[in-house]
């Protein structure tokens, strides 16, 4: 997927699509002289600025979206774990406690897979249901996960016990297993809603 298209889809989660297209065009034009690192930072900055601008105008609505997103995520995560139990793979997560902080690869794959699947499906469900809303209902949850990761990492640093493994979990695991699948699901959900003729005006 070309980076401008990715930018356009991400921007469409926080601003009407016609504006997302023109902003993605501006960023693409400027990235030709500033490079891909600037592009990624500028895109993240615009999405965050647009989200917090909308949050400032509708705090209660955003809080309700977050509560709904968390409820859907928890329900899906529990369902996936119950599904794992029925399929007989739950033993991967319920095995003996590892002697070190590092999880065994099979346990990590199982837990990471269920977390990522729950996040993607949450994005799909709430992204499709709230395709007419701006910002998209996946954004409060994505920002919440990012805040939790930063807060947990900061607490570890403040306590003077940041291990390499925990740092990896907060700074790589949370974006990889929670935020990226959630946003990808939200983009897919919004795209699924559009051709379905739901009368959506973004």
């Amino acid at each position, binding site marked *: 997927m070309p980076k*401008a298209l990715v930018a*356009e889809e991400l921007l469409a989660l926080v601003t009407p699509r016609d504006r997302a297209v*023109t*902003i993605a*065009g501006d960023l*693409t034009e400027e990235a030709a002289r500033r490079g891909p690192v600037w592009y990624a930072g500028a895109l993240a900055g*615009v*999405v965050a600025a647009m989200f917090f*601008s909308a949050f400032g105008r509708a705090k209660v609505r955003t809080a309700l979206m977050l509560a709904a997103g968390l409820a859907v995520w928890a329900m899906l995560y529990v369902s996936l774990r119950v599904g794992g139990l029925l399929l007989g793979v739950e033993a991967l997560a319920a095995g003996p406690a590892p002697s070190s902080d590092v999880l065994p690869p099979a346990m990590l794959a199982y837990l990471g897979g269920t977390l990522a699947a729950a996040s993607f499906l949450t994005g799909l469900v709430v992204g499709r249901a709230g395709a007419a809303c701006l910002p998209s209902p996946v954004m409060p949850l994505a920002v919440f996960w990012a805040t939790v990761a930063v807060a947990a990492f900061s607490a570890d640093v403040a306590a003077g016990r940041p291990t390499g493994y925990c740092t990896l979990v907060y700074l790589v695991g949370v974006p990889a297993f929670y935020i990226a699948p959630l946003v990808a699901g939200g983009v897919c959900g919004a795209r699924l809603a559009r051709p379905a003729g739901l009368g959506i005006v973004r």
Partner: protein
Amino acid sequence: MSRSNHLGEFEQIVLLTILRLGDDAYGVAIRDEIRCRTGRSTAPGALYTTLDRLEQKGLVSSRLGEPTPERGGRAKRYYAVSAAGAAAVERALRSYESLLEGLRIFEKKHA
């Protein structure tokens, strides 16, 4: 005057920049012009949220241009200052002039 008609410093800069650029006022050009004229580097997010806010207040309007290849086939959004926007800038500048006048008197007294 309602509170929404008061302009923040950055809103004034954006409106003046759009007026300077005339028909060529779109996102990249506005950021470049602000950097060139004020030496101030503007975050893209700050500019787009400000443009949205000014448009919601009715102080600027926007229209789509033609798609261009260097933008991946995406159109530019050109901005123009409305009559209400020009009046708001004028009011803000008159306030500044009034404040500066006071400062000149102060300087003369203590020279």
